[in-house]
Each structure stands twice: as structure tokens, then as C-alpha cells.
């Protein structure tokens, strides 16, 4: 077994994670559903890679994500930090057994469960009764309720737990408490600098992680999703440092994600300096403790080409995180494919790779560029028919900010995953057909990478009920792109679209240049040069001159690995 432990740090990372685990839960549900689409009943995707089996004190078996989620106290909304699975009945007597004197109770206003969570709770209560009996009348009643749920979620998601349908293990949830500030103030590197070290938080976090690692027979890697837009970045960096120290040979794949709020335009110059320095420092620190870093998060998702077929509200983290989560789901599929044995059934999946192989392939080849770009086509285009061979490559659009669009890089290395692809006739393509189609597309392409690893799977991305209505009216029920728009509302959600094909690509290419150069230039301009405006600030963040110069050197080395002839990397002296 090749287990992966997922770690989510920070608010937006947890939004993405919540969608991610909803997809997984939906896959599990569809696989177990006797009436479900047989395409999901594949044996070739091993969910144990990211899930763990356990047992409560009462002896009930559990199946929960192998996950550690770190967020603010209070960010769990109506979800208890102990989860619901392992608590011994909700109505336990709340008497105090350790104190004989007075007791005063300070109860904060209970967080109201929204319609969706209420229905989940209801279902759990009813489950033993209606097992197997699926009355038609009940179904129609459900239909009404479902639309209400979807509307309610589209309107008001406040916490990431509001739309989560997954049960978490009590060890999975960690709340950072005692910060004495509100989340808005927790917005730069300096403010979160000591959070990991203070109050033994670091030790508690590492203990929780160890809980999951200890039960792994053969861990293949860590998958970190880090919201690096604010004070969680130094926390994650310190955590990563201790992880790389403790689990030396286990590769870390890091997604540095940005929510829509972090790209707000700033009014004063001072704030711009703070923001730019934060970006540079945060990137430099995070990248030094992982094997590969993938920056994810566009300043405006709705206006990017990624959302050609999507209607996204930029300001809504519930919307944006859904797209990023879908991309992350796709890239994680090859890690759970069963490696090819002699008797392997080729029809379901192909192109299994483990985290180590993936990282080596992209970041360890000819040039050692560890900063990768994530591209996605959501929904994935129709793959056959000679006329539109370009469409697959054309549809793959970056989710990584600050990249060059058309770049001719002969040394690029790519790893692509296409799953659930649909052919021109509207039927699902087999894995070998997908392979042929992709190879065909590359043959015709004007720019070709040096190496491309292709993974393919038949099962599409299932759309769970708690999913934002972000699909445009050109997307069909199974995710096929239609020729003419469907009449009716312009946004379609989980009730209309049941699954979509996806294509995602992770590539190491010199298209990342602007991203690196901006960070290096900002660090030099505001932090290193004589008389620059950020020296004091950086000192208060705990960085001396030498450390900054080292940081600048590391960044310029990164630039040089991507492009040896770059101007900016050379003027370090």
C-alpha cells in the first residue's frame, strides 16, 4: 500500500479540501450504490491510498480521510472539533465530575446548521429505517428539498464545513486558538511567525500528523494544500521544516493556494510593499521545504480562460475552491491507480505513478525546476473527431498565476491526466482511445514538450450535491459540451450536471518565469537593496540581512534553472 497523508493549512486550503473530500465521498458512494453508473465501480482506483479504516470505542468500523486540517478556532462552524463519528452520543451528561464547587456555564450561541447539514443529519437518523425501501413519493419530496439545498448553499456558505458531507476523524481537525486577533488581521508573514512555536502548538500538530503516519505501512508522500496568502504561511513553513526533518525521505507535494480575497487591490504603497514582500518571502520559505511546489489561484478566475464554460463569482470562495479542488482531484488520481501487474485490466486506468515518481519526473529531470504549473480543462473537451485536435491542448488553461501563455519550451516536462473523456458520439472513451487521441493532439501541436507522461481513467468527476451552480448552459448532464445552449437558467449545478470529464496537466516549463521573476525583483527592490522601504518590516518578521540575501540567491537560482540566460538572475552582485 502506498498511502498519502493530506495536510490542509489555512482557510482557503480548507475550502478546497472540503470540495476535494466531497468528490472522494461521492466516488465511494457511487461505487457502493447498486444502481450507480458501472463506470465508478472500478477496482483499479484504490481509495485506501487517501482514506484510513478505523474503529470507534463502540466497535463501529469507520472509513475517514487520512487528513490533517489546520485552521482558526471557530472556522469549523457548526462542526464539532472532535468530529461526529467518535463522540459517544450527543446527549452526554454535561455534569462536572472534577469540581465540587460552583460551576458557571458560558455557552456561545449555537451555530445553526444550514439546510444541507440538517438534511444530512436527518438522513443519518433515518438511515436504519428506510434501508432498501425507496418509495417514489419520498423521491419527489427529496427533489424539492435538493433544489432548496443547492440554492441555500449558493447563497450563503460561511464556513468550509457548511458544504462538507464527509465524516472526519477527531485527529484530523486542529484549531489554532489563543491568537487574540480576528482573521482579517492575520494577513502577513510577520503576524503568524511565532504561531507554530508558541504554546506547544507545533508539538500538538506534529503529534496529530504522526498519528496518521504511524499507521501507514508504506507512505508514498505528503500532499500539502497551504493557503499562503497570510499568517498561515509561516505556520506551514515551520511545520514543513519539521516534517522534512522527521520524515526525510518522504516526498512533499505542495499546493500553494490563494483565495480570491487575497488578490484585492491595495490602496496605499505601503500595503503594496507589505503584500509583495509577503509573497516573495512566503514563496521562498515554503519552496525550500518541499520537493515540488505548485502555485494555484488566479487573481480573477471568472475572467480567465479556464472558466469559458463556467459561471463563477470571483468573490465567493465556495465557487472558486470548487474549480481548484476538481483540478487537485484529477492530479491525485494517478497516485491511487493500481500499478500495472501482468493481469492488469487495461480498460479502466493507465499511467499509474506514485508521488515520488511524479515529483522526480517533473522536478528532477534534466533541469531541476521544482515550481510547476497546474493547467485544467473543466469540463474536458470531446476527444475524437479529426476536426478539433487542438481543442484538448487549447482547453487546458493555467490555474497558476503570472505565467506566460504561449511559450515554446523544448525542455518542458508534463504530466497529464484525462479522465472520464467523452467521444464525439457522446459515449465514454476507453483508456486506449484516450491515449490515441492525446497522442494525436500532440502530433499536430506546434509546440511539443520534451516529455509527457499520460495517465487516463474512465471514471469522470462525479458532481456531489453540495456543489456550486457554476456550469454554463453549454454543459450537458454528463459533462459533454453541447453545440447550442440549453434554455433556462444560465447557471447549472449539481442537479443538472451529474458528472463531468476532466483533463488536468502539471508541467514544468519556463512559462513560470514571470512568477519567479516578480518575486525575486520584489524581494530585491523592497528588501535587499540599500535604502529600500522594507528593511525594517522584514527585520520585524525576523529576517536579517544575511538571510534575505540567501533567500534572494535561492530565488535567482530558481530563475536560472528555468532560464540560464535571464537578465534578472545575474545582477545579484
Amino acid at each position: 500500500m502506498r498511502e498519502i497523508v493530506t495536510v490542509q493549512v489555512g482557510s482557503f486550503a480548507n475550502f478546497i479540501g472540503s470540495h476535494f473530500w466531497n468528490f472522494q465521498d461521492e466516488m465511494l458512494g457511487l461505487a457502493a450504490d447498486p444502481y450507480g453508473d458501472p463506470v465508478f465501480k472500478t477496482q483499479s482506483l484504490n481509495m485506501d491510498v487517501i482514506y484510513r479504516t478505523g474503529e470507534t470505542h463502540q466497535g463501529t468500523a469507520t472509513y475517514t480521510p487520512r487528513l490533517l486540517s489546520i485552521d482558526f478556532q471557530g472556522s469549523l462552524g457548526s462542526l464539532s472539533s472532535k468530529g461526529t463519528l467518535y463522540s459517544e452520543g450527543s446527549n452526554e451528561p454535561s455534569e462536572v465530575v472534577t469540581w465540587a464547587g460552583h460551576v458557571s456555564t458560558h455557552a456561545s450561541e449555537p451555530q445553526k446548521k444550514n439546510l444541507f447539514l440538517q438534511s444530512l443529519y436527518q438522513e443519518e437518523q433515518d438511515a436504519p429505517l428506510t434501508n432498501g425501501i425507496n418509495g417514489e413519493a419520498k423521491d419527489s419530496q427529496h427533489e424539492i428539498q435538493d433544489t432548496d439545498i443547492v440554492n441555500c448553499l449558493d447563497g450563503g456558505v460561511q464556513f468550509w464545513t457548511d458544504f462538507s458531507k464527509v465524516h472526519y476523524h477527531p485527529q484530523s481537525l486542529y484549531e489554532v486558538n489563543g491568537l487574540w486577533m480576528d482573521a482579517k488581521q492575520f494577513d502577513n508573514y510577520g503576524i503568524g511567525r511565532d504561531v507554530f512555536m508558541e504554546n506547544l502548538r507545533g508539538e500538538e500538530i506534529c503529534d496529530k500528523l504522526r498519528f496518521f503516519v504511524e499507521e501507514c505501512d508504506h507512505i508514498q508522500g505528503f500532499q500539502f494544500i497551504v493557503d499562503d496568502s497570510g499568517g498561515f504561511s509561516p505556520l506551514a513553513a515551520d511545520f514543513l521544516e519539521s516534517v522534512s526533518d522527521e520524515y526525510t525521505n518522504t516526498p512533499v507535494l505542495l499546493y500553494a493556494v490563494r483565495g480570491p480575497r487575497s488578490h484585492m487591490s491595495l490602496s496605499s504603497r505601503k500595503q503594496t510593499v507589505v503584500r509583495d514582500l509577503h509573497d516573495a518571502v512566503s514563496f521562498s520559505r515554503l519552496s525550500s521545504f518541499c520537493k515540488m511546489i505548485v502555485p494555484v489561484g488566479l487573481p480573477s478566475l471568472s475572467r480567465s480562460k479556464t472558466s469559458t464554460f463556467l459561471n463563477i463569482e470571483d468573490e465567493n470562495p465556495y465557487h472558486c475552491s470548487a474549480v481548484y479542488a476538481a483540478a487537485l482531484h484529477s492530479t491525485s488520481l494517478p497516485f491511487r491507480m493500481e500499478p500495472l501487474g501482468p493481469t492488469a485490466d487495461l480498460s479502466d486506468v493507465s499511467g499509474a505513478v506514485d508521488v515520488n515518481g511524479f515529483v522526480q519526473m517533473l522536478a528532477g529531470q534534466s533541469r531541476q525546476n521544482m515550481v510547476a504549473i497546474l493547467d485544467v480543462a473543466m469540463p474536458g473537451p470531446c476527444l475524437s473527431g479529426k476536426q478539433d485536435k487542438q481543442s484538448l491542448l487549447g482547453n487546458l488553461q493555467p490555474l497558476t498565476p503570472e505565467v506566460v501563455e504561449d511559450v515554446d519550451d523544448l525542455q518542458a516536462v508534463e504530466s497529464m491526466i484525462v479522465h472520464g473523456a467523452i467521444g464525439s458520439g457522446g459515449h465514454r472513451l476507453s483508456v486506449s482511445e484516450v491515449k490515441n487521441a492525446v497522442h494525436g493532439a500532440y502530433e499536430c501541436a506546434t509546440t511539443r514538450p520534451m516529455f509527457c507522461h499520460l495517465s487516463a481513467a474512465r471514471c469522470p468527476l462525479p458532481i456531489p450535491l453540495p456543489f456550486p451552480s457554476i456550469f454554463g448552459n453549454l454543459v450537458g448532464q454528463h459533462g459533454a459540451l453541447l453545440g447550442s445552449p440549453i434554455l433556462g437558467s444560465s447557471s447549472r449545478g449539481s442537479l443538472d450536471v451529474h458528472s463531468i470529464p476532466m483533463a488536468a496537466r502539471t508541467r514544468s516549463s519556463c512559462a513560470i518565469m514571470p512568477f519567479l521573476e516578480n518575486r525575486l525583483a520584489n524581494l530585491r527592490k523592497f528588501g535587499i537593496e540599500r535604502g529600500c522601504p522594507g528593511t525594517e518590516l522584514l527585520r520585524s518578521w525576523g529576517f536579517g540581512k544575511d538571510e534575505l540575501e540567501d533567500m534572494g540567491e535561492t530565488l535567482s537560482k530558481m530563475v536560472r534553472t528555468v532560464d540560464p540566460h535571464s537578465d534578472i538572475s545575474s545582477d545579484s552582485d
Partner: protein
Amino acid sequence: MSLRVLNPNAEVLNKSAALHMNINAAKGLQDVLKTNLGPKGTIKMLVGGAGDIKLTKDGNTLLKEMQIQNPTAIMIARTAVAQDDISGDGTTSTVLFIGELMKQSERYIDEGMHPRVLVDGFEIAKRATLQFLEKFKTPVVMGSEPDKEILKMVARTTLRTKLYEGLADQLTDIVVNAVLCVRKPDEPIDLFMVEIMHMRHKFDVDTRLVEGLVLDHGSRHPDMKRRAENCYILTCNVSLEYEKSEINAGFFYSNAEQREAMVAAERRSVDERVKKIIELKNKVCAGNDSNFVVINQKGIDPPSLHLLQQAGIVALRRAKRRNMERLVLACGGEAVNSVDDLTPDCLGWAGLVYEHVLGEDKYTFVENVRHPHSCTILIKGPNDHTIAQIKDAVRDGLRAVKNTIEDEAVILGAGAFEVAARQHLLNEVKKTVQGVCLWYISLFTTIETTIEIHMIYIKMEQRAQLGVEAFADALLVVPKTLAENSGLDTQDVIIGLTGEHDRGNIVGLNQQTGEPMDPQMEGIFDNYSVKRQIINSGPVIASQLLLVDEVIRAGRNMRKPT
């Protein structure tokens, strides 16, 4: 107001408003924590928005749970939490003391006194109180064998303020024995060598001290022994799992056979390491009925586990980093980082190693060790919030014992010190304040200055007496609050206590009856370092807050998105 020119959005509070804001914040915080103090205090049950329960009687925990937003309150809270970090206790007292200093000052300031004068008085009073503390403390001789009784009394005093009497008394023995176990002569005590482990199981009174170690994981092989006696313990940090080598191993082979050969070669090197351990086991266990336990900080994969199990070895993987240290202290031997030069000297020894399973949680007990310098306090309780509260109390108890050993002194508790210090300040120190000023003046007369200035200066300095008085009264907040929490009349109690002190008897408050009593007889002792820290930090913060004459709130508005 010039700030308004620079930034029209800035909010400015002028002198008296700023002062009152600070005073009110300090009083507010005081009110919240007041009911915590002492063995008659109120325990607080905090229920979160999602129904999470947290029980606490600890000022430190409570402050951390509160979402404090007021900047003044944050400043006080930080001082109080720092107090806990340094000395392990006294958070509530610090907050109460600062609040009371502010409250007493308010009276004088409202009468038109300048805060500067009060602050000068605080400074004089603080120094005098610290000197008095040195005289007042009860020295404890800590030789090679510390006086267990006095340690128990200190621990009991702390624990009884957090837990009901029966449980507190039970834990008293546990924490004292735990600290004495990890204590080594001539070395600072490292409390991390006391592991605190919990089980959600049975009742709080089942909490016990394990001389040895409890690990929160078990072996990962179904056929390994669950119970082994007379065990050699190998503590190691050696990877016993097959890892892909760092360099692009995946791209060196060109066909399936090569790949297989590569995998086999890498597998072999792991097996070699396992075999070395097995060899050692065969060497030490040959011809006797002893067992062999491997506790590894790195991973052990199933094939290695299988090999070890075949050899009759019990193996645990991914031990906590800190447990590596603790294991060596508990069982002896040394932690090894490589299996190349294993000798029997590396091995530790434990009389009994067994596994305990609760649902999916496994615990491994390493017990009956010979000369433990590390131990485990195993806390049991019916639910998580009870366990958490006992854990907090145990931590405080351990700190109290450690402080006593390091201070080599204790302070009489139950408010005895505070009353004594107040009487000392009022009767002795206040009168000398003038003397101090005269010394200042003698300095000044060497310079050409007019008599009037001298006169004004004398008046200024004499008024510092009032600062001393405020300080002295503020000290009484501890006995007052103790009385209040017990439902006694504060005035009666204070009069009773001060009366006894004036007669030369050092007494504290008996919270059952409200009568004065001798804390020495009752065995109520506080930590010297905790008291000293409170007296040191309290006036500093209070002075800073009193001297604030303008509050400018400029940052907030600019932060808002435009």
C-alpha cells in the same frame, strides 16, 4: 490633534478618556477572572458554537479561549500568559493584581493626581515588597533528598484550586513522585521527561503514575506478542522500510528484469539492517527466557515486521521523538542511529512490556524498569473535557513542585503574604518615602536652584506615598477575592486578618469559617517564584497603562478594503 491633519480618519482619544478606557479594560478582565481564584472558586464550562465543551478553572486557559479584541486587555492578557510560561501559575493573580492597581489608581486620578506620581509610588512599593518577600519566604533545604512533605503541601495547594479534594490529594502524590523521578542532582529539571498520556476510559480516580513509559501506539503485526516479560529494549532511529533512493532510480532500467533486480537490491539493504538487529537479539536472548523489543523512530514496513516477528521480536515504529529520550532515561541503554555497531550495551531493560487496546487506539506499557529517570502520568477520564481539565491541573502541579525545588523556598499562602506585605508597606515603607526624597534633594542642592523648586519637589515626592498606599491596598485583592468566592464578608475578613498581623501573627484566611488561620499549620504554601513574578510584572504593566495619555486608532480604518 496634529495627527488629524496627517490622517483625517484617525480616531484620537484624549487624556482622560484614554486613561479610563485602559482602567475599564483592566477592570473588565479582572471581573472575568475573579471568580476563578482559590479552592472555593467557580469552575467555568465553556460551550462552543458547535457544542464543544471545555472545562477550566485556570486563568491561563481561560484567557487563551477568550477572543479578546480590546488592545489594553490583550496587553494585560499577554503579561498574564507570559507569567504562566515563566513560572507555570499565577495567571489569575496577575490579572487581578493589575486590575486592582488600576482600580486603586482611578480613585486618586479622579481627585486630580498626576499618574506620574502614582507610578513613582508603585516603583518604590515594588522594590520594598520584593525586599520584604525575601525576608518573608520560608527557606526549604533541597539536598540530595528533598523534603517530600513540603513538596506535597505545595502541590496540594495548587491542585486543590483546580480539582475536587479527593482527586487533588490523589494527584498530589503522583506529581511529586513524578518530579522526583525525573530529577537528577545538579541538573535543571526537565518536565518534558514526564510523559502525560490519557485514555478515555473509566474514571478520573483511575489516573495513575507509571514508572516507565506509556506509548500511544502498538506493534503493527498481528502475530507479535501482546505481553512480554524481561525485555531488552532497543531504542533506535533507523529506517527499516524500503524507500526509493533519491536519484532518478526509476529511469535507470530498460526492462522488467533490471527493474526487479534493482528493487531486490534495495530490499536487500533493508533486510541486512533487520538481520543485524535479529543477530543482536539472538546474542542476548540465547539460553534465557528474556524477550526483545525494538522501538524505532523511523518506519518499519510489513516485510521487516514479518522478519522481526519470525525472530520473536516485538517492534514498534514511528515513536515520538521525545519518547526516544524518555525511553533511554526510563530503561537505560542508548538510542542508536545505525545498526552497524550494535552491542548489548545499547540495550535498555524493562520487566514488563504489554499492549492495551481501546477501539482503534493502542497503548504500549513499558513498565518495571530498574532505575527510571522518566515516567508517565496516565490520566483516565470518562470524556475528553474531563481529561483535558485534569491534564491542565497536572501540568500546574508539576510546575509547582519543580519551582519549589529550584527556588529552595516557599511562601505562606491563603493570603498571608499579601496581608503581611501590605502592613509592612503602610507601617514601615510609607514613612520612609520622604526620606528618599530628602536624599534626592541633597543631590539637587549641590546645583544652584531656588528654594521654591525644592519645596515643590518635596511635595511631589511626598505624594508618592499615595502610590505606595494604592499599591498596598491593591495587594489585598487576593485575600478579598478569596473571601468573596467563599461567600464571606470581605470587610470582616480583612479587618480580622490585618488585626492579627498587627499583633504580629502571620495568618491567612480559612475559607471554611472566615476566621484567620495559620497557613503553616494547614499546609498551604505558594511558590516563591510565582509571587515574585507577579509583584515584578504587575506594576510594570499598570504603570505603562496609567501613563498612556493618548490613544490613536489609525491602523484599523486604513485596513478596510476600498
